[in-house]
């Protein structure tokens, strides 16, 4: 009953505050993109409204900029947003990754310093984990963090740091002890405006410049910016990577069916089927796997709600990347020469987007734990296969 009342309250507030022009817009395109955000007055209005209400981080205490709501209520907000084609304009690395980490491992001082400005999206965060020599084997990271008495001095390089060139702060894993591997890592909050920090965008094969290399050259960091105890950073990182994995499994999995575009590009036979039988067989096979994948996500979610095993995230991720990558290849194949364009009006905009999406999709089986790492995890955790 109370739920129903709250739901009505949410509906009323949304109808009064969500700018209709943003309906159906992908909230993610604004993440870390200062230009797009600045360009949209509506977006700023919408973000401010949600920030003021505390509904971007609804379960956080009001002292931290949240609304102090229950998980059930937070879910109602999410459902109502989705129902009208709205989105959470506050959602970010800060809300999804650092926030939960500080709530679990941070000091009260750290929470009060950072959470309120995360809940308003006033400050943007980036995640400094991977290094050139530490990809799949994250714990081999080498970025030096030396105790200089009243502050830390940090030196080294991070890579694959999303939006580092736009970020105000970075939460990073650093090495505070070189004599042990996992036990020599600490979790540090670094102000990106500190002298000695430089973020350089990396150009990806898709043309995206979302990821950066970040160089740290004798950067001074206050002592109080360490989260948890010295050399205890790996445990925090593992926990945080769980947040990342669970947010990965929430990735939008619905895709436009290939059938209409295949009909248009490959023609139809007398029975209305895609005329290229070989391509059709592969398209259908992929589409069926995609359908079964969506059923699998629903089943895993249902099982998880009912306390099921919950060790299937690695399996899901590999299925997903495989199916989506294959689909991206099929779409470009169907587009033929139209799908080979980089720019210019000779190529339809949809086709150019498909081409970039294909190139981008290759990352799905690399980031957030590669295909190989996920299969290692499945073999050990889900299947109980022995170590060598």
């Amino acid at each position, binding site marked *: 009953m109370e739920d129903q009342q709250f739901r009505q309250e949410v509906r009323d507030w949304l109808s009064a505050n969500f700018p209709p022009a943003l309906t159906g817009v992908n909230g993610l395109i604004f993440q870390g993109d200062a230009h797009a955000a600045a360009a949209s007055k509506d977006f700023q209005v919408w973000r401010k409204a949600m920030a003021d209400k505390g509904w971007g981080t609804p379960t956080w205490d009001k002292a931290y900029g949240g609304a102090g709501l229950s998980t059930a209520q937070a879910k109602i907000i999410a459902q109502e947003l989705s129902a009208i084609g709205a989105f959470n304009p506050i959602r970010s690395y800060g809300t999804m990754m650092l926030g939960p980490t500080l709530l679990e491992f941070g000091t009260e001082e750290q929470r009060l310093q950072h959470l309120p400005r995360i809940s308003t999206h006033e400050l943007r965060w980036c995640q400094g984990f991977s290094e050139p020599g530490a990809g799949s084997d994250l714990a081999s990271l080498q970025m030096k963090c030396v105790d200089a008495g009243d502050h830390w001095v940090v030196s080294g390089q991070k890579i694959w740091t999303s939006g580092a060139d736009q970020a105000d702060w970075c939460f990073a894993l650093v090495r505070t002890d070189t004599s042990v591997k996992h036990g020599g890592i600490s979790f540090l909050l670094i102000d990106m405006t500190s002298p000695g920090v430089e973020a350089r965008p990396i150009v990806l094969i898709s043309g995206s410049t979302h990821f950066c290399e970040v160089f740290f050259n004798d950067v001074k960091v206050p002592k109080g910016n360490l989260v948890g105890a010295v050399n205890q950073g790996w445990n925090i990182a593992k926990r945080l990577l769980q947040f990342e994995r669970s947010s990965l499994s929430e990735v939008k999995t619905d895709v436009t069916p290939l059938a209409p575009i295949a009909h248009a590009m490959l023609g139809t036979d007398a029975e209305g089927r895609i005329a290229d039988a070989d391509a059709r067989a592969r398209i259908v096979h992929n589409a069926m796997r995609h359908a079964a994948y969506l059923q699998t996500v629903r089943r895993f979610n249902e099982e998880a709600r009912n306390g099921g095993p919950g060790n*299937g995230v690695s*399996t899901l991720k*590999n299925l997903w990347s495989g199916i989506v990558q294959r689909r991206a290849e099929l779409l470009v194949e169907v587009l033929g020469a139209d799908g080979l364009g980089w720019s210019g009006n000779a190529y339809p905009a949809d086709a150019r987007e498909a081409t970039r999406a294909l190139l981008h999709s290759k990352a799905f089986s690399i980031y957030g734990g590669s295909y190989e790492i996920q299969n290692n995890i499945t073999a050990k955790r889900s299947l109980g*296969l022995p170590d060598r």
Partner: protein
Amino acid sequence: MAVLNEEQTMLKDMVSQWVRDQMPVSVARGLYDHSGGGRRDAITGFDKDAYAEIAAMGWSGILAPEAHGGSDFGAFSLGFVLEELARTLSPLPLLSSAMIAVSALRLGGNAAQQSAWLTGLADGSIIGTLAVDEGAHHAPHALSLSAARVENGWRLDGIKRPVADGMGAGLFIVAARGDDGATLLLVPADTAGLTREPLDQIDARRPAMLRFDGVVLGDDAMLGQGEPLLSAILDRAYVGQAAELLGLATQAFETTLDYLKTRVQFGQLIGSFQALQHRASDMFGELQLTRSAVEAALAAIDADDPQLPSLASLAKAMANETAHRITCEMVQLHGGIGMTHEHDAGLYLKRSRVAEQAYGSSSFHRERWARLNGY
């Protein structure tokens, strides 16, 4: 697997326990003679005593209405029973009789027909089965066996094969070609003019070849006419067969996994070799997709979901493909021992190939799904 309610959990536990205690793979193996093929004297190709036993526990009545002695427990429940039984290749006519024949009578039967047959099907005293295929491939829209209108009834001429569990069945639900298209008729096994002979199949299950030579039936034999009824019955067959394939594949995978954890080569458990770990992980993923597809299709039957045809073909195609792949890997990963008749791997592979073809190959169901979904 999906979340079960309390009654379902109890049923599933009971089935698992029974399979463990009463239905080891050696029962299916018993149908084979020394040379690896079917035994001439095992005419029915299934275990009659065991079927009586599970019928006594009510499993044959799961889909039947309470009015006819069933529990009306739903296709989802019957599905996981089929799955559990298929783990050990249990040679039982539960799919033919309790899933398909009961569905046919529920979907098409009038009150008299239901009264005449459902109680027997539910309590296991009669075994029913669908006689639809006539040649090498499942082709329900190209029936040859003819149902000609005669005075007060019908006359059937033609053959049906392979008919699953047909050597022990008391009732055939026959799909024939009538003047107005597909016609479904109830034909007791002892009807004059109907003869049957066993086929020696690689899974030793000995389906029947039925010959209809001027079989005359009364009007009361008519279950229904038209594609929709036949399709609705077949959807249940597709999903039930997919549930069996899921069980078969799941057990084949788990048996293989156990072997990987115990077999030593080069001083290592072979399950520690990364190449095998990755193949096992990929197979595990395929099993997940298949389980989801099968469970969703079973649930769609109970929900009268109009998407059932599409979901049924998705389930059967996925189950075919996964069982195919995993039974290949089962033999491969067991190495030489997996090639011997003495080991179970060959039994899983042979049964899988039969079940893959039964009620439509992967090609058939991918084509059907594609048409239903506008490709």
